[in-house]
């Protein structure tokens, strides 16, 4: 199975509710995250501009670079679901995995000295419906969750309906990220190498 997120960027309005939903659900301290949302653009010159928002979290790669470089085996991919997880008992906070992930979606938690990452709310796996908190609360209905190997899942259907508007992050190291982004030209042109505008940059 290939559980993952499909994020419809035609809908996403960059409201950061997914970040707050994740932080509350997973009891993360200030300054610690498992996801973030970047503004891409505006591109162009006023008033001929376009932009979109790019929610970023673990891309749930099929060949995760983070596992490869983990010296303790704490990082692993759950065989049953395809979700990349960290066994926090085994994580020593060495941050090696940060070098194996090209997407910057693993975060050090200084309070626990372990790595935080999106688990797709794996702890909700056996709930009545397995649905990550960010998906449930998304204010634009932009986040879709499910098994890409199941053609009847919501994610598979969304991907099929999106046709050529389906995108994935660049994959120079052949990690095969499973996360899918949908963006149509009508909203903005997909940027293979986006310049993310961060609100807050430490200087």
């Amino acid at each position, binding site marked *: 199975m290939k559980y993952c997120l499909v994020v419809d960027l035609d*809908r996403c*309005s*960059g*409201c*950061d*509710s997914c*970040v*707050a*939903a994740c*932080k*509350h*659900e997973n*009891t*993360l*301290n*200030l300054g610690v995250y498992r996801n973030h949302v970047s503004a891409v*653009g505006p*591109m*162009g010159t*006023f*008033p001929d501009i*376009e*932009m*979109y928002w790019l929610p970023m979290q673990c891309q749930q790669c099929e060949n995760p670079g983070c596992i*490869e*470089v983990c*010296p*303790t085996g*704490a990082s692993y991919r*759950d065989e049953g679901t395809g979700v990349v*997880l960290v*066994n*926090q*008992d*085994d994580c*020593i*906070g060495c941050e090696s995995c940060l070098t194996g992930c090209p997407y910057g979606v693993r975060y050090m938690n200084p*309070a*626990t*000295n372990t790595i935080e990452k999106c*688990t797709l*709310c*794996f*702890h*909700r*796996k*056996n*709930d*009545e419906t397995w649905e990550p908190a960010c998906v*449930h*609360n998304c*204010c*634009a*209905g932009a986040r879709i969750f499910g098994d890409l190997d199941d053609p009847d899942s919501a994610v598979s259907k969304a991907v099929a309906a999106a046709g050529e508007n389906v995108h994935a992050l660049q994959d120079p190291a052949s990690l095969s990220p499973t996360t899918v982004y949908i963006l149509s030209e009508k*909203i903005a042109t997909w940027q293979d190498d986006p310049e993310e*505008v961060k*609100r*807050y*940059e430490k*200087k």
Partner: protein
Amino acid sequence: MPKSNLTRRKFVKMSALAGAATAVGASMAGSLAACAPSVSGNEMAETGGNTAEPTNSKEGLVAMKTTCHGCMNTCPAIAYLKDDVVVKLEGNPEAPTSRGSMCIKGLNQLHTMYSPRRILHPLRRAGERGENKWEVISWDEAVTEAATHIKEAIEKYGNYSFFASVGGGGAYSFMESMTLPMAFGSPTIFEPGCAQCYLPRWVIAKLFYGGHDQSICDNCVQEIFRPDNEETQVVVVWGAQPSVSQTAESGRGMAELRAKGVKTVVVDPNFSPDAAKADVWLPLRPGTDTKLILSWYRYIFENELYDAEFTKYWTNLPFLIDMDSSSERYKLPVLAKDIFPDFKQSTPANTPAYVCYDLKTNAVTPFEFSAPEDATVDPEIFWEGEYNGKTYKTAGQLYREEADPWTLERAAEECWLQADKIEEAILTYANNWGGIGHGVATDQGQQASEAPIGLMGLDSIMGRINKPGVTLTQKGESTVPTSRPVTYNNGFSGMFSPMYGIGAVVGLSDEENEAWARGEETAAGQADVSQQKLANKILNDRLGMKEHKGLYGWCHSHIPTVRNAIATGEPYKPRVWFDYSGNKLAMLGNAKSWYEVFPEIDYIIGQYPMLTSFHIEACDLVFPLREWLEEPMAAFNQQDTTWLQNELVHIGETVSHSIPAAQIVNKCRELWGGHIPNGLEPGLISDATEAEVKQSVAESMGAPDWETLQADVDKYNPKIAPNYWQYYQHETIVDDGLPAGFATESRKIETYLQIAVKMARTGYPYCYPEPQEACEDYHPIVHAIEPAESPVEGMDGYDAEYPFVLTSGRVPYFHHGTMRHAPFSRELFPTAEIRINPASAAELGIEHMDWVKVTSRRGEVHARAYLTEGVHPKTVWMERFWNPECYDASQANPTGGWRECNVNVLTKNDAPFNEIFGSYTNRGFTVKIEKSTKPDNIWVEPEEFEPFMPTQEMYAEAKTKDVF
């Protein structure tokens, strides 16, 4: 892919080491992870997936439905409790518009509920104002102290020495605040929103056609969000950003509409998310909406894109207007009886016959109200000519003349737009079925009344009223007419008109209104006139009413006039203040001008769940309020559903918002021996105890009482309004044999807002039977307004010292002044930002995220520069801000936190005001920008917000009983 050469088996030893490291981390004091109540499932998240299969993450939690109250949209939500602590919030998927969405403002109530900033007991000021020193006192002591101060002031200085205010976020007290001064016989109540937020659109809609307005972010526009809506093809979002202001409700609604293929046009100086996704974005120069609106009229008239049939028979545009400035009916539509002495009206006296130019007979002819198919005339919309030696023009002709100078090219030049884009926007609107959603932006300036007159007028000439798929609809079974529709006009539902016999009923004839004012039985019922004289005097004496009579719509005073009265004592001096909500110093325009008059005010009472700048700088007494997870309420409707905001927890001695003032009024009555001298009875309309609050909520939900409601919540929650979606009400034949029409004087849509002319002259329909003094006539149609502080060289009000025009708007993290103490909001949006075009920033040597100083003619504040092509090079955009960290106990030199980053230090609260509503200028004034440094006391690093995190002590607060 090569496997790691470390097998899991080999790392058994390593995991022991990792365990040790975790233990050290978890013992760090003060971190949420260490002290948050344990949520089943979260423990699983902490340990990843290494253990056995996870159990149900909600095991051991109690789920309760409620609604969010992070903003006015009150989205349905589900709360999860463990040991009487709310540990999880999520959106309720059953909600028809929000569909399970919950935004960051709502989610972060998990922290603000248990914030160390909460106040849990009544506080009396123990130091000087501004010192932030308090002593805890008992409720009895607090209520008696407040009542005594009010009573003494009234006895010494008169009833008008009392005043009230409301607003600023989290305020639910609309009815209570409006009626509190009535109980004390005082006219003075204000809200920083009101004339600057929603009143103009709300009141104009009521006067314009007696129905609901176009506001897309105030729960008003519902029709387009209907899940089975297949009719809407276009929505024009004018001066609103639903995805930011009301993210989970109308934001979600807009996302669904766009996904369905509905086209959108967005008029906003800022490249908001809704603008970014729009088919056409018009980034107009702030404050120039009237010019752009006139260009739409000109284009639509010239190209005959309007619905001629609807305009002819359902609007008043074909009416001949009296152009004789010496006439009593100057600027008003000519009545048939006035120029045709032999004319016998066939319609009832409450339905006057006007005059048109009839294309069938090519003559000036009486125009009686009827269904279009029964009309004897074919009225010309645009006509001017003479009749009996006098010159007349139709209202349509006046509109066309007003619009005539506003070619696409001229509008483009003055509004900083492109002519072809304006044309594309108009055609997208005109060639597709739908309507206009109108936001707060235009309320915040001189154009506050003109923009809604113009934008509702556009939907009216397009025939987009009371029809499926449009924005201007009248919803609910009660809007189905059985007789000639009328409006009552004093108060939200006009309830003070029958209560006190004040205010004319629009839709009654003059004679019937005179009978109404005498307390006689009429077609509109019977008013209680026993306190009419006093109630009418309060209307006459309200501050600022002579000039800005539209404020009567919500019974509010004109804020700058109140401030001046406090400063000068003219015409009377407000001295004792009860404020219902929020941080007035962050919300009031030109905040410094208010801070300066605080010493003139003898006694100031506040109430809120926490201490804000206002409480610290001004208040002598503060009552602790419940947060929304604690407060029972029937939420605002979402489509045809009303949801229960339930009482889930309750800590400390906090009370529902209505209670402190009601307790004070009761105490005053007791001290006076039953009746407050010169006060209206009942005056205050408010619940005084939690039991009364709960009973009111139960009744609103359709339950007989609170216990019954709670015993079977799902039976009553949500309450579904039957037959909510209604259309074509105006065509319904009613008891006089005529189509119902609209609840206006003419029984038609008053696209030419004729009642505004009468209002200026007498206060009609509000200040009645005793009129208000006349002021200059209000404009019944849009006319072009240039902002008083213009950024355009050569325009009046241009000053090279202040080259940028500043406008503002919301960000998704905060509603009004709320949530500045919510750590998960602040770490993502730590402090004030000003959006600046990169080209302009480069000229000023400013880089992304540099601190800058922003200076207006009134003051200076600081913000960080957010460089973006999303604003015009001469436009800058700021969210309002205030900083509760400035008076954190950890600060060496604490301040009130309202001067550093607060856009309302810059805003303009002096004339010119909007003529009808007295709105001052929160948006569209000019500033200069310089590179600067971070002010002291401001936090920006995520970790700095640690003192705002919930504490173990707050989680451990016992669940307490109702205080009253």
